[in-house]
Protein backbone atom coordinates (compact mmCIF):
# COMPACT_ATOMS: atom_id res chain seq x y z
CA UNK A 1 0.00 0.00 0.00
CA UNK A 2 1.21 3.26 -0.98
CA UNK A 3 1.30 5.65 1.77
CA UNK A 4 -0.33 8.85 0.69
CA UNK A 5 1.70 11.60 1.91
CA UNK A 6 -0.38 14.41 3.16
CA UNK A 7 0.49 17.60 1.53
CA UNK A 8 1.97 19.81 4.07
CA UNK A 9 -0.29 22.80 4.30
CA UNK A 10 1.12 26.11 5.35
CA UNK A 11 -0.35 27.43 8.50
CA UNK A 12 -3.35 29.61 7.65
CA UNK A 13 -2.70 33.20 8.57
CA UNK A 14 -4.64 36.34 7.97
CA UNK A 15 -2.33 38.94 6.56
CA UNK A 16 -2.33 41.68 9.13
CA UNK A 17 0.30 43.89 7.63
CA UNK A 18 -2.30 46.13 6.01
CA UNK A 19 -4.27 46.43 9.21
CA UNK A 20 -2.05 49.26 10.35
CA UNK A 21 -2.62 51.10 7.10
CA UNK A 22 -6.35 50.79 7.40
CA UNK A 23 -6.40 51.99 10.96
CA UNK A 24 -4.10 54.86 10.04
CA UNK A 25 -6.61 55.89 7.42
CA UNK A 26 -9.39 55.90 9.99
CA UNK A 27 -7.20 57.75 12.42
CA UNK A 28 -6.46 60.38 9.82
CA UNK A 29 -10.12 60.89 9.19
CA UNK A 30 -10.86 61.51 12.83
CA UNK A 31 -7.83 63.69 13.24
CA UNK A 32 -8.96 65.89 10.41
CA UNK A 33 -12.60 66.03 11.38
CA UNK A 34 -11.97 66.75 15.05
CA UNK A 35 -12.72 70.26 16.18
CA UNK A 36 -10.81 71.02 19.30
CA UNK A 37 -11.70 74.68 19.41
CA UNK A 38 -12.90 75.46 22.87
CA UNK A 39 -15.73 77.87 23.10
CA UNK A 40 -14.48 81.06 24.60
CA UNK A 41 -16.37 84.20 25.30
CA UNK A 42 -17.68 86.62 27.85
CA UNK A 43 -20.23 84.99 30.07
CA UNK A 44 -23.19 86.90 31.37
CA UNK A 45 -26.44 86.14 33.10
CA UNK A 46 -29.44 88.03 31.83
CA UNK A 47 -32.05 89.31 34.23
CA UNK A 48 -35.39 87.59 34.23
CA UNK A 49 -37.99 88.97 31.93
CA UNK A 50 -40.48 91.20 33.65
CA UNK A 51 -43.27 92.70 31.56
CA UNK A 52 -42.96 96.49 31.42
CA UNK A 53 -46.19 96.98 33.38
CA UNK A 54 -44.79 95.14 36.38
CA UNK A 55 -41.40 96.71 36.31
CA UNK A 56 -40.34 98.51 39.40
CA UNK A 57 -37.48 100.89 39.65
CA UNK A 58 -35.25 100.29 42.58
CA UNK A 59 -33.14 103.25 43.52
CA UNK A 60 -29.47 102.48 43.73
CA UNK A 61 -27.25 104.84 45.59
CA UNK A 62 -24.78 106.70 43.39
CA UNK A 63 -21.98 105.38 45.49
CA UNK A 64 -22.37 101.80 44.32
CA UNK A 65 -23.42 102.43 40.76
CA UNK A 66 -21.06 102.60 37.81
CA UNK A 67 -23.14 103.55 34.82
CA UNK A 68 -21.52 102.84 31.51
CA UNK A 69 -23.10 104.41 28.48
CA UNK A 70 -21.98 103.78 24.93
CA UNK A 71 -23.59 105.81 22.21
CA UNK A 72 -23.72 105.20 18.49
CA UNK A 73 -20.67 107.32 17.76
CA UNK A 74 -18.54 105.20 20.04
CA UNK A 75 -18.30 107.71 22.84
CA UNK A 76 -18.26 106.16 26.27
CA UNK A 77 -19.56 107.75 29.42
CA UNK A 78 -18.72 106.38 32.83
CA UNK A 79 -20.76 108.11 35.48
CA UNK A 80 -21.33 111.05 33.14
CA UNK A 81 -17.69 111.54 32.33
CA UNK A 82 -16.23 110.83 28.95
CA UNK A 83 -13.70 108.04 29.10
CA UNK A 84 -11.64 106.06 26.61
CA UNK A 85 -12.46 102.36 26.50
CA UNK A 86 -9.00 101.14 27.60
CA UNK A 87 -9.28 103.33 30.71
CA UNK A 88 -12.43 101.67 31.99
CA UNK A 89 -10.77 98.84 33.88
CA UNK A 90 -8.29 101.17 35.58
CA UNK A 91 -11.07 103.46 36.70
CA UNK A 92 -13.29 100.71 37.98
CA UNK A 93 -10.65 98.75 39.86
CA UNK A 94 -10.25 101.06 42.87
CA UNK A 95 -14.01 101.22 43.21
CA UNK A 96 -14.32 97.44 43.23
CA UNK A 97 -11.46 97.11 45.71
CA UNK A 98 -13.01 99.65 48.08
CA UNK A 99 -16.15 97.53 48.25
CA UNK A 100 -14.57 94.14 48.97
CA UNK A 101 -15.50 94.20 52.64
CA UNK A 102 -18.94 95.69 52.19
CA UNK A 103 -22.02 93.50 52.61
CA UNK A 104 -23.58 92.01 49.50
CA UNK A 105 -26.18 94.72 49.11
CA UNK A 106 -23.54 97.43 48.99
CA UNK A 107 -21.28 96.01 46.30
CA UNK A 108 -20.61 97.80 43.07
CA UNK A 109 -23.12 97.41 40.28
CA UNK A 110 -21.94 98.08 36.77
CA UNK A 111 -24.72 99.02 34.46
CA UNK A 112 -24.07 98.89 30.75
CA UNK A 113 -26.30 100.72 28.38
CA UNK A 114 -26.06 101.11 24.65
CA UNK A 115 -27.94 102.67 21.81
CA UNK A 116 -29.51 100.58 19.13
CA UNK A 117 -26.94 101.77 16.62
CA UNK A 118 -23.92 101.14 18.82
CA UNK A 119 -21.33 98.87 17.29
CA UNK A 120 -21.34 95.40 18.83
CA UNK A 121 -17.57 95.27 18.89
CA UNK A 122 -17.41 98.40 21.03
CA UNK A 123 -19.88 96.92 23.47
CA UNK A 124 -17.77 93.79 23.76
CA UNK A 125 -14.63 95.87 24.26
CA UNK A 126 -16.30 97.81 27.07
CA UNK A 127 -17.70 94.66 28.66
CA UNK A 128 -14.28 93.10 28.37
CA UNK A 129 -12.78 95.99 30.29
CA UNK A 130 -15.33 95.64 33.06
CA UNK A 131 -14.67 91.90 33.32
CA UNK A 132 -10.97 92.53 33.24
CA UNK A 133 -11.25 94.89 36.20
CA UNK A 134 -13.15 92.29 38.18
CA UNK A 135 -10.73 89.51 37.28
CA UNK A 136 -7.75 91.60 38.26
CA UNK A 137 -9.27 92.40 41.62
CA UNK A 138 -10.05 88.73 42.18
CA UNK A 139 -6.55 87.78 41.17
CA UNK A 140 -5.04 90.24 43.61
CA UNK A 141 -7.37 89.14 46.37
CA UNK A 142 -6.47 85.50 45.82
CA UNK A 143 -2.80 86.37 45.89
CA UNK A 144 -2.95 88.45 49.05
CA UNK A 145 -5.31 86.20 50.94
CA UNK A 146 -4.19 82.72 49.92
CA UNK A 147 -0.91 83.25 48.12
CA UNK A 148 -2.32 81.40 45.17
CA UNK A 149 -3.12 82.29 41.65
CA UNK A 150 -6.72 82.30 40.63
CA UNK A 151 -6.36 79.44 38.17
CA UNK A 152 -4.82 77.26 40.87
CA UNK A 153 -7.91 77.50 43.03
CA UNK A 154 -10.46 74.91 42.10
CA UNK A 155 -13.94 76.02 41.22
CA UNK A 156 -15.71 74.21 44.05
CA UNK A 157 -13.33 75.00 46.90
CA UNK A 158 -14.28 77.21 49.83
CA UNK A 159 -11.61 79.67 48.79
CA UNK A 160 -13.28 80.24 45.44
CA UNK A 161 -16.61 80.56 47.18
CA UNK A 162 -15.22 83.26 49.40
CA UNK A 163 -13.70 85.12 46.48
CA UNK A 164 -16.96 85.00 44.61
CA UNK A 165 -18.81 86.18 47.66
CA UNK A 166 -16.41 89.02 48.34
CA UNK A 167 -16.09 90.13 44.75
CA UNK A 168 -19.24 89.25 42.89
CA UNK A 169 -19.46 90.28 39.28
CA UNK A 170 -22.67 92.23 38.95
CA UNK A 171 -23.12 93.59 35.49
CA UNK A 172 -26.55 94.84 34.78
CA UNK A 173 -27.74 95.18 31.24
CA UNK A 174 -30.05 98.14 31.22
CA UNK A 175 -33.59 97.63 30.06
CA UNK A 176 -33.74 98.80 26.46
CA UNK A 177 -35.62 101.95 25.84
CA UNK A 178 -38.45 101.62 23.41
CA UNK A 179 -38.44 105.22 22.32
CA UNK A 180 -35.04 105.24 20.67
CA UNK A 181 -35.24 103.43 17.37
Amino acid at each position, binding site marked *: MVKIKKKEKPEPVIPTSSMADISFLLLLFFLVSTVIDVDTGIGLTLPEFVPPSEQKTVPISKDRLAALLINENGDVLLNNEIIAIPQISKTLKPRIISKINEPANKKLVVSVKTDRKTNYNLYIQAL*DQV*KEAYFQVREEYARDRYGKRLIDISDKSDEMKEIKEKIPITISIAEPETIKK
Partner: protein
Amino acid sequence: MKFQKKRAATKQQIPTASLPDIVFMLLLFFMVTTTLREVDVLVSFKLPEAKAIEKIENKRLVSYIWVGKDGRIQVNDSIVLLDQIQKIMYAKRVQLPNVIVSLRIDKNSDMGVVTDIQQELRKASCLRINYSSMLKV
Protein backbone atom coordinates in the same frame (compact mmCIF):
# COMPACT_ATOMS: atom_id res chain seq x y z
CA MET B 1 39.55 30.58 2.78
CA LYS B 2 36.03 31.59 3.00
CA PHE B 3 35.07 34.16 5.50
CA GLN B 4 31.88 33.77 7.37
CA LYS B 5 30.09 36.98 7.84
CA LYS B 6 29.38 37.64 11.41
CA ARG B 7 25.79 38.34 12.04
CA ALA B 8 23.79 38.73 15.15
CA ALA B 9 21.61 35.80 15.78
CA THR B 10 18.57 37.90 16.50
CA LYS B 11 16.07 38.77 13.85
CA GLN B 12 16.68 42.02 12.13
CA GLN B 13 13.09 43.11 11.97
CA ILE B 14 11.06 45.58 13.87
CA PRO B 15 8.07 43.74 15.18
CA THR B 16 5.08 45.48 13.65
CA ALA B 17 2.44 43.20 15.01
CA SER B 18 1.49 45.63 17.77
CA LEU B 19 1.40 48.63 15.48
CA PRO B 20 -2.31 48.30 14.71
CA ASP B 21 -3.06 48.10 18.40
CA ILE B 22 -1.25 51.33 19.06
CA VAL B 23 -2.94 53.05 16.19
CA PHE B 24 -6.31 51.76 17.27
CA MET B 25 -5.71 53.17 20.68
CA LEU B 26 -5.04 56.60 19.18
CA LEU B 27 -8.03 56.15 16.94
CA LEU B 28 -10.25 55.36 19.86
CA PHE B 29 -9.10 58.47 21.68
CA PHE B 30 -9.99 60.68 18.76
CA MET B 31 -13.28 58.93 18.18
CA VAL B 32 -14.29 59.51 21.75
CA THR B 33 -13.21 63.12 21.93
CA THR B 34 -14.60 64.15 18.56
CA THR B 35 -17.76 66.12 18.47
CA LEU B 36 -18.69 66.17 14.86
CA ARG B 37 -19.89 69.50 13.65
CA GLU B 38 -23.57 68.94 13.35
CA VAL B 39 -24.71 72.18 11.83
CA ASP B 40 -23.72 74.11 8.78
CA VAL B 41 -23.23 77.75 9.48
CA LEU B 42 -25.14 79.64 6.87
CA VAL B 43 -24.13 83.16 7.80
CA SER B 44 -20.71 84.71 7.60
CA PHE B 45 -19.44 86.40 10.69
CA LYS B 46 -16.27 87.58 12.32
CA LEU B 47 -16.11 87.33 16.08
CA PRO B 48 -14.94 90.25 18.20
CA GLU B 49 -11.80 89.97 20.27
CA ALA B 50 -11.55 90.27 24.03
CA LYS B 51 -9.06 89.63 26.80
CA ALA B 52 -11.07 88.63 29.84
CA ILE B 53 -12.73 85.59 28.34
CA GLU B 54 -13.78 82.35 29.92
CA LYS B 55 -14.00 78.88 28.55
CA ILE B 56 -17.25 77.04 28.46
CA GLU B 57 -16.43 73.84 30.26
CA ASN B 58 -19.36 71.78 29.19
CA LYS B 59 -19.92 71.70 25.48
CA ARG B 60 -23.10 69.69 25.74
CA LEU B 61 -24.86 72.58 27.41
CA VAL B 62 -24.12 75.03 24.67
CA SER B 63 -26.59 76.11 22.09
CA TYR B 64 -25.67 78.60 19.43
CA ILE B 65 -27.24 81.62 17.85
CA TRP B 66 -25.42 83.12 14.90
CA VAL B 67 -25.83 86.61 13.56
CA GLY B 68 -24.11 87.31 10.29
CA LYS B 69 -22.74 90.42 8.66
CA ASP B 70 -26.02 90.93 6.87
CA GLY B 71 -27.99 90.72 10.09
CA ARG B 72 -29.53 87.35 9.41
CA ILE B 73 -30.07 85.17 12.44
CA GLN B 74 -29.42 81.45 12.47
CA VAL B 75 -30.51 78.98 15.10
CA ASN B 76 -29.88 75.26 14.65
CA ASP B 77 -29.81 74.57 10.94
CA SER B 78 -31.84 77.37 9.50
CA ILE B 79 -32.22 81.09 9.25
CA VAL B 80 -34.95 82.27 11.58
CA LEU B 81 -36.85 85.43 12.18
CA LEU B 82 -36.49 87.33 15.40
CA ASP B 83 -39.92 86.47 16.73
CA GLN B 84 -39.33 82.75 16.24
CA ILE B 85 -36.37 82.68 18.59
CA GLN B 86 -38.42 82.67 21.75
CA LYS B 87 -40.29 79.50 20.81
CA ILE B 88 -37.22 77.61 19.64
CA MET B 89 -35.14 78.57 22.63
CA TYR B 90 -37.90 77.80 25.07
CA ALA B 91 -38.14 74.28 23.62
CA LYS B 92 -34.40 73.96 24.06
CA ARG B 93 -34.57 75.16 27.60
CA VAL B 94 -37.24 72.63 28.48
CA GLN B 95 -34.98 69.89 27.22
CA LEU B 96 -31.87 71.25 28.87
CA PRO B 97 -32.68 73.40 31.88
CA ASN B 98 -29.25 74.94 32.29
CA VAL B 99 -28.56 75.66 28.67
CA ILE B 100 -25.89 78.22 27.86
CA VAL B 101 -26.64 80.26 24.79
CA SER B 102 -23.53 81.20 22.93
CA LEU B 103 -24.06 84.28 20.83
CA ARG B 104 -21.81 84.25 17.81
CA ILE B 105 -22.41 87.71 16.51
CA ASP B 106 -20.49 89.51 13.82
CA LYS B 107 -18.44 92.28 15.31
CA ASN B 108 -19.82 94.95 13.03
CA SER B 109 -23.41 94.31 14.00
CA ASP B 110 -25.53 96.93 15.68
CA MET B 111 -26.51 96.55 19.30
CA GLY B 112 -30.14 96.73 18.22
CA VAL B 113 -30.23 93.17 16.99
CA VAL B 114 -28.26 92.00 20.02
CA THR B 115 -30.69 93.66 22.38
CA ASP B 116 -33.63 92.19 20.51
CA ILE B 117 -32.20 88.69 20.74
CA GLN B 118 -31.48 89.20 24.41
CA GLN B 119 -35.03 90.27 25.02
CA GLU B 120 -36.30 87.15 23.23
CA LEU B 121 -33.96 85.00 25.29
CA ARG B 122 -35.20 86.59 28.47
CA LYS B 123 -38.76 85.84 27.47
CA ALA B 124 -37.73 82.25 26.83
CA SER B 125 -35.93 82.34 30.18
CA CYS B 126 -32.61 81.26 28.70
CA LEU B 127 -30.64 83.52 30.97
CA ARG B 128 -27.14 82.16 30.74
CA ILE B 129 -25.50 83.66 27.71
CA ASN B 130 -22.02 83.92 26.40
CA TYR B 131 -20.79 86.48 23.91
CA SER B 132 -18.50 84.34 21.86
CA SER B 133 -15.23 86.10 21.21
CA MET B 134 -11.68 85.32 20.29
CA LEU B 135 -8.72 85.82 22.57
CA LYS B 136 -6.97 89.06 21.89
CA VAL B 137 -3.22 88.66 21.76
